[in-house]
């Protein structure tokens, strides 16, 4: 009987090593949202999140249905996010986690600097027509 109890006690320790513990708690998280240019979420796509200078990603996974990556920055201000789809869409960008992001604000992965898309479109057309206008002026002067 003593031998059986001893055997059970010895087996219990390695058996416990197969368990996975779960604890629940709150921490200020940073939410990055990735979208295609037409507003569709960059959903269920692969991402890797790196600390600066580290080749080992701190977090790997897939964006959620809303194209979000959620992580806890642990007070580190600079991160690098690499997200990609099989068809070559994606980003490889440095992320700056400021106090606003730590407070739960959402950083948008779409157009840089938050300039409305229509303004950027108009600005680009302005550059194209402006450059060609200059070229036209140059030809006109050369012809005279």
């Amino acid at each position, binding site marked *: 009987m003593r031998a059986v109890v001893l055997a059970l006690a010895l087996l219990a320790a390695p058996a416990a090593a197969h368990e996975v513990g779960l604890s629940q708690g709150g921490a200020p998280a940073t939410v990055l949202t990735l979208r*295609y*240019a*037409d507003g*569709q979420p960059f*959903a*269920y796509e692969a991402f890797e999140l790196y600390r600066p200078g580290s*080749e080992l990603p701190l977090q790997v996974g897939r964006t959620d249905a809303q194209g979000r990556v959620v992580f806890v920055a642990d007070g580190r201000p600079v991160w690098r996010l*690499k997200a*990609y*789809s*099989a*068809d*070559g*869409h*994606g*980003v*490889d*960008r440095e992320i700056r986690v400021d106090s606003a992001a730590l407070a739960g604000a959402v950083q948008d992965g779409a*157009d*840089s600097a938050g300039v409305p*898309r229509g303004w*950027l*479109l108009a*600005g*680009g*057309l302005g*550059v*194209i*027509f402006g*450059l*060609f*206008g200059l*070229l*036209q002026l140059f*030809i*006109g002067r050369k*012809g005279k």
Partner: protein
Amino acid sequence: MHIPDGFLSPQTYLPAWGLAAGAWAWAGRGLAARLDERLVPRLAMLTGLAYALGLVMLPLPGGTSGHALGVALLALVFGVRLAFLAYSGVLGLQALLFGAGGITALAVNALAIGLLGGAVAVGLYRLLRRFGEDLAAAVAAFVSLQASALVVALVLGLQPSIARRADGTPLFFPLGPEITVPAVLLPHLLIGVGEAALTVLVWRIARRKGWVGP
């Protein structure tokens, strides 16, 4: 189809910049030889159209999105050299203003989309025009888009073989060609139909107005 920054290894984009620099010089000489007061506003108009088309994203099956290019149209109306030059400018603007495509990847994007796309469009059009001008333009636009998409997919898919860490993990784009080729090509089959229709529509107008060059 525009490859973003961080997806290509320097072993890929540095030689591409060298190649593109030579191609831009060649295209620039082509522009200089053809410059006149009628060409510039026409080229500006279709370059502006190509730029705007690239920003009209259409949702596609599979949760991704795509857009028409307008490269075949530029090439059929103005020739390969001017199309390559104009579309390189479009790619540069899209990268700078929208982050659509990367600066480091600009040369690869320009060579694959602007130069190869334009050359395939013009070559196929010349080959097929005896069967009808519209049919030739439509097939040229469709196939030129697929050719560009295939090269972009192969360039992406080759990255894991080109640059990897000591432990074998890829340093840049991590998926191989067996994944990238179908993932890039299949949506572009659908986009190609729209690209062909749009090309024929504007191509007809350009021909009627006498815009089509040698």
